[in-house]
């Protein structure tokens, strides 16, 4: 069991407040990813849950018990750090058994737990090595092993993969995910990589400047972003945004080129920000005129960078082969129903349920 409830968490360093009242409910067994740009307070929030930072205000509860005043070791959590924080002077086995030794468990219990964890993580052959004799991926696994031998209520990960190269990152991503499916331990995972967030999370918490911007499943965030920020942050390449205006229920950009019907009823003539994803537009005979600025084929897909008459960049991805070359004049149309609409001032979504 390990549900986590955060109520109005605030954290200040001196006079500077870096968390401005975070509310979050995490179900037992859920894999929650905290994502957001650098400096938005992800680590601070995670470290507050771990008890490594004292919060200035609010309540942190695990399984309904408020743990604000408990020291880290009494919170029944385990944490994996970005730099792994393996004890350099201890072997892999000693590293993994450290918490059990501190808890004064009998040596044979420690051995069997360490061996079981090593089995799961494929570390059995490395138990006698020292951290400096391991590769990055192996260190990463030892750090996870250290967390799982304790069988805590909650796993906390702070950007555990950011020190690995791209290929290993993808591999470890699936390993962590598989581990979670096997152990079903509540997990809070911090990353600034939206792909990690999308692929791993049951639910994503998008943070920005010490606030929660939006919470939802990966596809909820993708399909119904609550703000320009979330829309631009989730998805790669990012969503396109253009200034637009409502004209009799149609959204028009530039000199009155029609993008399609507004997804939401708006006052006539109202200025908005319109957004559409790169895969939701295609070349067509009519629609928004643009020039091809760049063509980047990846094989499966081709990414086009287009420039509108006003000079705005628009990215388009397509699985079809492109006959055009750079400089060609083209027209693009947005797939019906795929337009997003945001307020110009607040940048909040005007679309659908979020309205």
């Amino acid at each position, binding site marked *: 069991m390990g549900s986590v409830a955060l109520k109005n968490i605030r954290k200040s360093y001196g006079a500077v407040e870096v968390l401005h009242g975070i509310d979050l409910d995490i179900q037992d067994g859920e894999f929650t990813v905290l994502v957001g740009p650098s400096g938005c307070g992800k680590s601070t929030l995670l470290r507050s849950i771990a008890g*490594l930072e004292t919060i200035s205000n609010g309540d942190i509860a695990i399984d309904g018990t408020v743990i604000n005043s408990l020291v880290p070791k009494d919170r029944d959590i385990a944490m994996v750090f970005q730099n792994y924080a393996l004890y350099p002077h201890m072997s892999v086995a000693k590293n993994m058994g450290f918490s059990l030794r*501190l808890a004064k468990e009998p040596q044979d219990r420690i051995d069997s737990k360490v061996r079981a964890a090593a089995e799961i993580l494929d570390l059995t052959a490395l138990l006698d090595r020292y951290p400096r004799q391991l590769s990055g991926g192996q260190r990463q696994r030892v750090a996870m092993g250290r967390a799982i031998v304790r069988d805590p209520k909650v796993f906390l990960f702070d950007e555990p993969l950011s020190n690995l190269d791209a290929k290993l990152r993808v591999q470890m991503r699936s390993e962590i995910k598989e581990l979670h499916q096997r152990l079903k331990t509540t997990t809070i995972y911090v990353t600034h990589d939206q792909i990690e967030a999308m692929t791993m999370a049951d639910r994503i918490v998008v943070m920005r400047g010490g606030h929660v911007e939006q919470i939802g499943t990966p596809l909820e965030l993708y399909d119904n972003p609550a703000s320009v920020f979330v829309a631009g942050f989730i998805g790669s390449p990012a969503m396109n945004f253009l200034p637009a205006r409502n004209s009799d229920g149609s959204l028009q950009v530039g000199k009155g080129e029609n993008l399609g019907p507004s997804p939401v009823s708006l006052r006539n003539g109202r200025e908005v920000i319109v957004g559409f994803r790169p895969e939701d537009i295609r070349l067509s005979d009519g629609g928004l005129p643009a020039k091809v600025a760049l063509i980047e084929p990846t094989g499966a897909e081709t990414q086009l960078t287009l420039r509108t008459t006003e000079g705005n960049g628009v990215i388009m991805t397509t699985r079809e082969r492109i006959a055009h070359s750079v400089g060609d004049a083209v027209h693009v149309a947005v797939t019906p129903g795929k337009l997003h609409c945001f307020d110009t001032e607040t940048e909040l979504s005007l679309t659908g349920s979020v309205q």
Partner: protein
Amino acid sequence: MNEQPRTLYWIMLSLIGIVISIYVLFPVFWLFLASFKTQAELAQLPISFWPASPTLDAYKALFSPTHQKGQLLDWPQLIGNSFFIAISSTVIVLFFGTLAGYSFARLNFPGRDLILGGLLISRMFQGAALLLPTYRLMSMIGLQDSLIGLVLLYSAFGLPFATWIIASSLREIPKELEESAMIDGASRLQSMVLVVLPLATPALITAAMWHFVGAWSEFAFASILLESNENKTVTIGLASFVELFTLEFQYVGAAATIVALPIMLVFFFGQRYFTRGLLAGAVKG
């Protein structure tokens, strides 16, 4: 790159090194050799370099009770005193230096960096200027002719630098290691003892060596504070040869060799850590 100038460069450099070493070490070596000579050989002209018939008489004499009666100073006692002072003050310095260094490296308190800087500056005011004030102070509290007094004094002198070395090396140890230990169930003290200190061994050894050598060879304060013969230290013993045995260089040589021995042993076994410890401290702070 051209090989020849580089080789030449190294040869030159080595030669200079050798010349400097000989220049510095010759008197030491000569004294060492003198300790194996007889009084007669030392007195004869021309001066001989190697002992004609090496003998341990000088060493035996230093440690023989009859010798002590005649010459006032009891060398086994001097050595014992020096060891007592050097070892106890090293233990004190290491203990408090570790706690203080840890606090400076890890805890946040007002004026932390100022105090740490002040500690280092305080070292600049040591030496001759402090001799008389210290004497006054120690006599006021009745510790002037006492080994304990000297232990406390050396500890006070040694603490700033030890604290500084230890603090700068602890700063290099990622704080996540300790945080991880605390999440794993360690108390602050356990995380310090089980995780931080083992990683700071080079700095601890450096600090200990530094202090031990300093305390073992300190002369000025010992000579003005210690009055009774049974309280004196090896450095005072060495200096007293100036009056006692002007011509008996074999005793001076033997005593100097004995006094140098602990220092050489310390460096021999600690060298590895010593360079590492100083470097670790040098990177930051």
